[in-house]
């Protein structure tokens, strides 16, 4: 009976997500097309950084999304631990690789931006370093998912790890900042600053929306795949037992 209740909810999710997905994909395509058009052909080059500012249009959304997906995972973690919602750990498992990919994109584009600006692919700047640590936490979570075979057990373990990480991230950020200022006082490169020109802000926001929609669509698809994977798993075990029973009934006769 418990399994029936468990299945009901994901079934509704499968229906809902199938309806939702085309709309999200359409909106995503529109936002990305408009955003990239504005970013490449309309936005002016920065007076300080020249054309390399074009990297910002993918770098910054990736950083936002890496953080957003981690926050989503932390929420799902609470969902798993507190409400034991059957979809929560599915959402969490599906989010981890996507968040890790955005963190990776943020780091890679940052490196390609840093080389012409600072003369090196990497500096141990507080912001970059924190993103690298976030990537490491993502990788740890993915590794834990892959190591624990049984999804129901893995869900709780990973939820706890995610929440520990979530509590830790501000502490890590704070200590990295402290460590960083300790070593290189005030020599850190200032990125854009809050006074970003509207001709750059709009493409940035639209692109951020597009990437968010892309990430969320991927998340939905990955969740659907995960739900199906679990169904395949249970059905396979049931199937093996059923055929075994049939064979056992047939054998003595």
């Amino acid at each position, binding site marked *: 009976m418990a399994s029936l209740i468990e299945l009901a909810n994901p079934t509704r999710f499968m229906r809902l997500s199938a309806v939702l997905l085309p709309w999200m994909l359409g909106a995503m395509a529109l936002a990305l097309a408009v955003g990239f058009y504005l970013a490449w052909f309309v936005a002016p080059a920065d007076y300080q950084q020249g054309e390399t500012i074009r990297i910002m249009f993918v770098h910054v959304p990736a950083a936002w999304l890496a953080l957003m997906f981690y926050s989503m995972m932390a929420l799902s973690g609470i969902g798993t631990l507190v409400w034991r919602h059957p979809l929560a750990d599915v959402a969490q498992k599906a989010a981890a690789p996507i968040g890790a990919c955005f963190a990776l994109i943020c780091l890679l584009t940052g*490196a390609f931006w840093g080389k012409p600006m600072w003369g*090196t*692919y*990497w*500096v*141990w*700047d507080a912001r970059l*370093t924190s993103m*690298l*640590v976030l990537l*490491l936490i993502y*990788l*740890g979570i993915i*590794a834990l998912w*892959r*190591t624990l*075979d049984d999804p129901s057990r893995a869900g709780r373990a990973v939820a706890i790890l995610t929440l520990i990480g979530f509590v830790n991230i501000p502490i890590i950020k704070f200590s*990295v900042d402290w*460590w*960083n200022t*300790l*070593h*290189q006082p005030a020599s850190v490169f200032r990125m854009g600053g809050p006074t970003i020109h509207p001709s750059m802000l709009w493409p940035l926001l639209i692109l951020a929306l597009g990437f968010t929609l892309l990430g969320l669509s991927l998340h939905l698809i990955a969740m659907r795949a995960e739900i199906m994977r679990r169904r395949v798993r249970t059905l396979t075990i049931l199937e093996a037992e059923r055929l075994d029973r049939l064979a056992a009934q047939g054998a003595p006769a």
Partner: protein
Amino acid sequence: MSRAFIAILRRDLALAARAGGGGELALVFFLTIIVLVPFALGPDLNLLSRIGPAILWIGALLSMLIGLDRLFQSDEEDGSLDLIRASALPLELAVLAKGLAHWLVTGLPLALAAPLLGLLVALPGAAMAPVAGTLLVGTPALSFIGAAGAALTASLRRGGLILPVLVAPLTIPVLIFGVSASNSALGGTIPFLTPFLILCALSLLAIVVGTVAAAAALRQAE
């Protein structure tokens, strides 16, 4: 006979590709160590770039030890080692197959990833190929020295704790010549090839000695 060799190699690669294989974990651990070092030393890129090869080598060495304890232990626990022992294939060749598989899923990715992680410690471009090269020829030594240790601890329940303590001292020569070969590429009085060839020799020696020692340890399990 070669069929059994290939079967062991293929099975270990397949197991590594399945969930929880040690290969990608070693890579993540490698990255973690490289990230940790600057927090201790400070972010001074000049300093980091000078000791970059050393950091990478230490990181690679420690990452090789991750999951090494499972090399024979998992086979011992579920009884597949009995299967391998019952094979007509000499145990030495079986160990060779398993060590080779371990290197392919652990050492090779580490060596290939090293130049990329070298960026984090501002490794000069001239040093990237030498560091990757030394890791490429040096990690087999780590795999096979480790295999001997893993065979010794295969039937111990807490073997995973003892293993690094047993193996780490044995890897000192590899570390010395690996780092000095990488450093000599950055300048200095020693030509690159001198330590590099010694490193190659150490690797070949470790493959032979490690294989024989591991097989001997597995043979007299009790």
